[in-house]
């Protein structure tokens, strides 16, 4: 049950972030003429400055990876069921704060890459109905991304977000300490009935040391990241707000799915602007994710809930397709832009279908799962869009309708059995 350790690993990376963040703060000077220069000075002239910045960047990405794994493992094991609903919600908020850390920290070196990615990223809030323009101005501190944006991102990154994060993490840890680890459904206690101290704590420490080893090795051999778009922090040129934006600007990898989803929406839909509908959809998805403990009625009553396990896998496959497409997998070498988009959709659809097949087979044989409606719907969506060539939104609607019918039939078949069981 290695999944239980990802919370601790995330905690380790957070501590690394705090320590290296404080060290970076000793040299970083926010300002038009100093932000970029101070980071450049730090990485080139200050002894071990390169190491601190590189660890901070690597640790940020690894923290998001481990946090995502922690969140999905919690979801699959239904650890959110009573009495741990508040733990889930606090963890969910910590996840959002972590994304906020990533977004605000990205701009701070004030380099070209960060400047344009932030311009594109903040531009998204303009589509929020009614409040869009106001929100954009609040976020940017003006109409455009300027040095005022840097000041408020800096304030958010080093004061506002850490304060909120520390408070929430305190609550999260307190609840875990009070309620203990959540045992899997059908078991009374956490795996092997392990005591938190010393057994679990020492194992955690062992893992933390292994993570430190990994972090140091990555830092020395790949100081600017693995070279994957959206996971690259070479300083490059200084930001120049007067320069034209260059093509192919993309956000960090963990925002790629939202970026790609926005691209998949047509300009107008249901009498609204496409991006507005897309943002509403994202808000609904995030909302559903937050209240899962209350939606999952079977887990609420400590019964197996295969539908929600399937929802977790469906979410992973949904994000996989969008992230792969956001990376333009298979886009190189195609003649026109339209041909390139079709090619990307096709190749990414094949990869997602392959991954989905593996997931279903493994779940069927290893975990004896028999409920695959939502995973199937996501795979149908991907196939209709990538292989048949239907527009993304239309393919999604068809898949949703198919899934709804399948769920209705499935629940009608189960209802008599359920009613007999309850009697």
């Amino acid at each position: 049950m290695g999944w239980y350790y990802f919370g601790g690993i995330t905690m380790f990376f957070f501590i690394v972030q705090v320590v290296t963040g404080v060290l970076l703060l000793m040299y970083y000077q926010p300002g038009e003429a100093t932000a970029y220069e101070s980071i450049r000075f730090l990485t080139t002239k200050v002894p071990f400055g390169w190491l601190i910045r590189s660890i901070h960047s690597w640790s940020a990405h690894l923290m998001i990876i481990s946090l995502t794994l922690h969140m999905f493992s919690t979801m699959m094991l239904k650890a959110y069921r009573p009495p741990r609903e508040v733990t889930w919600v606090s963890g969910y908020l910590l996840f959002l704060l972590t994304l906020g850390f990533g977004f605000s920290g990205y701009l701070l070196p004030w380099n070209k890459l960060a400047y344009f990615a932030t311009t594109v990223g903040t531009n998204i809030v303009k589509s929020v109905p009614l409040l869009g323009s106001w929100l954009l101005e609040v976020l940017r501190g003006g109409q455009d991304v300027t040095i005022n944006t840097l000041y408020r991102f800096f304030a958010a990154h080093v004061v506002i977000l850490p304060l909120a994060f520390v408070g929430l993490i305190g609550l999260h840890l307190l609840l875990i300490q009070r309620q203990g680890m959540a045992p899997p459904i059908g078991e009374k206690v956490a795996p092997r009935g392990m005591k938190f101290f010393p057994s679990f704590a020492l194992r955690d420490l062992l893992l933390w040391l292994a993570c430190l080893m990994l972090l140091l090795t990555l830092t020395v051999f790949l100081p600017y990241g693995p070279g994957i778009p959206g996971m690259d922090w070479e300083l490059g040129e200084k930001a120049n707000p007067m320069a034209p934006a260059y093509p192919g600007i993309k956000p960090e990898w963990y925002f790629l799915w939202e970026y790609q989803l926005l691209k998949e929406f047509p300009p107008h839909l249901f009498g609204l602007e496409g991006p507005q509908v897309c943002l509403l959809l994202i808000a609904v998805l995030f909302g559903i994710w937050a209240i899962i403990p209350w939606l999952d009625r079977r887990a609420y009553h400590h019964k197996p809930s295969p539908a929600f396990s399937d929802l977790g896998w469906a979410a992973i496959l949904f994000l996989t397709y969008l992230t792969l497409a956001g990376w333009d997998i298979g886009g190189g070498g195609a003649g026109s832009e339209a041909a390139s988009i079709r090619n990307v959709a096709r190749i990414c659809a094949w990869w997602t279908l392959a991954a989905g097949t593996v997931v279903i087979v493994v779940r069927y044989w290893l975990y004896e799962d028999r409920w695959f409606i939502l995973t199937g719907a996501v795979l149908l969506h991907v196939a209709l869009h990538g292989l048949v060539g239907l527009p993304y939104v239309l393919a999604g609607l068809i898949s949703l309708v198919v899934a709804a019918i399948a769920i209705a039939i499935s629940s009608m078949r189960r209802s008599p059995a359920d009613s007999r069981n309850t009697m």
Partner: protein
Amino acid sequence: MRTIAIALTLFLIPAAGSAVEQSSAGATSKLDALLAAKDEHGKPIITPEERAYFDGLNDNLKELLNQAVQKEWITRPEHLSVLLSLGLRPQKMELLLQNNCVLCHSDSGNQSADTLFTVASATTTSVSHMNLKEVVEDIHFRRGVSCAGCHGGDPTADLGHDFVKEWPEQHRQKNRAWVVQFCTRCHSDPAIMHQFNPALPTDQLAKFKDSPHGQTLLVKHDDRAPSCVSCHGVHGIRPAKDPQSKVYAQRVPETCGACHADPKIMSGFTRADGSPLPTNQLAEYRTSVHGRALLERGDLGAPACNTCHGNHAASPPGLAQVSQSCNLCHSANASLFDGSKHKHAFEQHKWPECGQCHGNHNIAKTHDSMLATGQGQLCGDCHRQYAKGNPECIPTANYFHETIDQMDQARTRFISVSEKLAAKGLDVDPINNELTELGDTLKKSRTYVHSFSRNTFQQVTAPGEKAVQRTDALVTKAREEYKYRQIGLAVSISLIGLLMLALYLKLRQLEK
């Protein structure tokens, strides 16, 4: 009485208005009839595109068209179609519709083929003077000189060919010299030209008279020599800065080549030494570093024919002038050459200075191997033949070549090393600063070769050679830094590994 007057006025006003409307409606219906006319197969003569163009015209232009129809300048739908098919912008259409010469000469119904403007696709390369599309682009036409400016007559009169007296209608094909005199009536008169553009020169005729072109045309009366229209065109003359002008920088080679690359036209013409004038200049120029810069890269700073040979005073540069032509851009090289030993030697041999080593129309991109002294190489070949007794020559050339070659190789190598070190996260700014200095020195060294003096050359290359040494030291330092990082990592991992082992053993002990 007053009541009757008012009643009468009220009665008459609508009647007068109705009369105006009737007359206007009559004209409009005539124009409408032309617009709606169909050919014998029942197909509309005015195409949908022409109709759409007409519908987009402003009221003023529609009224001008109306008037032209009413006055019967336009009587046939085919004629209207020709005018609409031009798709002119409003200002040009207005000029055209006020010019009866054009209106009459664009109607195939009353003009013979040789006096009719065509509207074939714009022929910017042809000297055709009867293409209407070209005529409306003509700078003279656009500035109001119009047909009558040269041909005389009144473009607003109903009919008339009152040509000016100087117009040698009868003999104009036999002796083209009159063209020069004709154009310069205005172009050599500052008072006239300044009305249009005070910056325009008016000395073209004076220059042309002294040029070989002018001598051939005006003195020898050889019609193969160019007149104004040979280079500028006839109808459709555009300003030199217009990319479609025949004398726009990028089109000059092609314009000059129209004659100079044609063996038929050039046959019989000779150089000062009596040898026949070659016709391969254009072909050579196209492959030269100058030709590629101008024609392929679009670098308008690169020289065309006229940059070295002149425009209206075009002539082949004499020996002394070659360096002056090159000097216009390559001033540093030229001044170094002027102070060198070669200056005197070249004068003795009567060699064109720059051209002797670099060529003229076919100037290739210079290469460091030009300094090599082996067989078949520039410096070596020349010096073995002409400076046999001078022991300094070959070693000096070798020194130049080796020094530049070493710096260039070092720079290429360091650039690649710097990129690799940067990818490893090392600070390469100091290395790149040295590489910038090395690059500057290399450029300067290649220029200072033209001093042909070892001492002068050494003064310039010394900083570059030092930059190479400093870069070498910086690269070594950066590599050591990377090694230090790897060793540091190995030590850290070993310590962490030991700690992990200890923890594991402790855990096992506790759990037992």
